[in-house]
């Protein structure tokens, strides 16, 4: 098709949210969460995600989050049920005086919850995100991912954690590689050896420089994330490139900390805004996919159980 022959273009990624708008949302949500003794939380989360997605734009059109509080509340209840079953099994075998079996089973099941949570969270988040009405989607297979996860965890444990960077990259390759944006396919090319070397270097230099290199380490991690990501569609491609420097990260992190300290945490909304602006300002996208011609391919998926399990397990940063 002629699309792949089009000349390379740059794509504009922007974050247009303001600290004071986001502050309003955070505070109103906080008020409602306090008044309802926490029950409002899923709705609050939906509103916050909606604002952030809506404030992020690609070529002047904003992204969208369709998830609702109701979906996430249902997911929350199911997630509670999962944990109740988990502790029920532990309790049952403890009651039967089989503590070894109980603990073994408990940990195997607990480890199994992680891939299920990650899988569910990806499916939900992606399916509930869109741009110009074109949904994102996640096509990973739960069973396959769970088995892979157990394999990676096993290697990580028997190598006393050394396999960790390989696990991280394998997982990222699998997860991002299964993300779709209409008929556009995501691809991530992480390599465990590179990632391992990057982290060892970062760790050692950070110690030697009393933490100062930490900002440059952060810069390299960000760069590794962004530069290895690409989008493909019918031979067309979009590549990403990070333009952030260690100095940029230094400024971002130090100013964020100062804001938090001097506002007693109330500046949180501005910290989030600054960080998101920073991220999108420092990612360049270039390629030859015509974004005016995407078609809808991904189905709706409204089960937020995985999303809420991830919330319980604090997996928010896995993206």
């Amino acid at each position, binding site marked *: 098709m002629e699309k792949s022959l089009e000349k390379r273009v740059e794509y504009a990624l922007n974050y247009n*949210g303001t600290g004071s708008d986001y502050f*309003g949302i955070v505070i109103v949500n906080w008020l409602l969460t306090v008044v309802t003794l926490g029950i409002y*939380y899923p709705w609050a989360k939906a509103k916050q995600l909606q604002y952030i997605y*809506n404030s992020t734009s690609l070529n002047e059109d904003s992204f969208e989050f369709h998830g609702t509080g109701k979906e996430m509340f249902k997911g929350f209840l199911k997630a509670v049920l999962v944990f109740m079953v988990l502790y029920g099994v532990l309790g049952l075998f403890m009651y039967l005086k089989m503590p070894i079996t109980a603990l073994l089973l408990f940990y195997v099941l607990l480890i199994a919850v992680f891939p299920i949570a990650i899988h569910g969270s990806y499916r939900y988040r992606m399916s509930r995100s869109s*741009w110009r009405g074109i949904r994102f989607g996640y096509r990973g297979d739960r069973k396959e991912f769970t088995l892979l996860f157990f394999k990676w965890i096993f290697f990580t444990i028997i190598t006393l954690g050394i396999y960790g960077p390989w696990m991280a990259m394998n997982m990222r390759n699998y997860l991002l590689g299964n993300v779709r944006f209409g008929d556009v396919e995501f691809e991530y090319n992480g390599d465990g050896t590179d990632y391992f070397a990057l982290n060892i270097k970062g760790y050692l230099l950070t110690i030697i420089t009393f933490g100062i290199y930490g900002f440059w380490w952060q810069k390299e991690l960000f760069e590794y994330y962004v530069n290895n990501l690409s989008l493909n569609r019918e031979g067309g491609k979009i590549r990403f490139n990070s333009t952030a420097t260690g100095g940029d990260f230094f400024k971002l992190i130090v100013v964020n900390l100062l804001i938090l300290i001097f506002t007693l945490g109330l500046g*949180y909304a501005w910290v989030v805004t600054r960080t998101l602006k920073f991220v999108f300002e420092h990612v360049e996208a270039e390629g030859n996919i015509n974004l*005016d011609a995407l078609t809808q391919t991904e189905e709706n998926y409204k089960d937020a159980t995985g999303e809420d399990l991830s919330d319980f397990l604090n997996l928010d940063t896995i993206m």
Partner: protein
Amino acid sequence: MNNKTTAVFYDGNSSVPQQIELSLNKLNATLEFRISDGAYYKWLIKEVVFDKRATGLHLKHGSDIVQHIKIEDADFIDAVHHFRKENGHISWYQKLLDLGFAAHFGIAVVIMALIGLSYLYAIPWVAEKSVVLIPEEYDNKLGDSAWAGNEYFMNVDSKKTKLLNDFAKQLNLQNTKKLKFIVVKSAEINAFALPDGSIVVFTGILEEMKNYDELVGLLGHEASHVNNRHSMKMLCRSLSGYLFISVILGDANGIMATIGDNVNSFQSLSFSREFEHQADADGFKILLVNKVNPQGMSNLFKRLKQNNFVSIPEFLSSHPVTENRIEFIDKMIKNQKFQKVNHPQLESLFAELKQ
């Protein structure tokens, strides 16, 4: 006012932008437009989701196939907004958001103040009440498990343990439950009470003492912790504090939770000071009841403070600053009448313990 504008339409099946002429029909309360293939749409304004963003006003319609319209014309956006306002379509959530920064800031301050107040007054009260509901057996269980965890690392001096038990038998410690005394061989200058009534005294602290009245003061102090169920109260308060924080703050805002957590540990520190203060006062009373010189307690503290100036003994550390505690006891000694009687038996047991 402008009731017509050009806008961009997305059909929910592709990302192809389509130019449309959109009109607001106030009479029927609809938004109407025709797309390039000739189809004519009428959207009931009630069924449209409106979203004001930096990129313009976004309209969403439909549930499975979501259609989209983006409007950039400011006059038209105003017209739609007025129409929705007049017809009461603005949601209460949006109204809360529209209150503006000053109001939001005010809300934040009020919530923080309320949280602070309930933290200072409501939580301790609830904790105090809930302790009464917890049967004493749990104190014993708690003590047992604490001791079981440490037993292996502690070298119990059985001879001195017996002596200390004999020593305590001579005293009225105003205890409601049976107390058990254990002497542990260790250079550490420390003593502590477990909720089941076990009072553990290290040989290190015994060596520091010069007179039996100091030991009575120490035992009185520790016995007070048991009598008042301080461990259980501490547990209840930090648990309810933790629960409170995670319910109210934990999920609303990560930063708030961190601040809250720190406040919680700070709070339990001052809480333990409160308990130490009570134990000092009770220990003092026990000295009086047993007609032992109350100066012993003050002497013990002074000695511990002098001899260990580099590292404050654990027994004193988490506490009202030692200076204040000494002052507090000295003041009581001054203000209260007391009787001193010689206790030859205590004296001889103490001498044996010191060997």
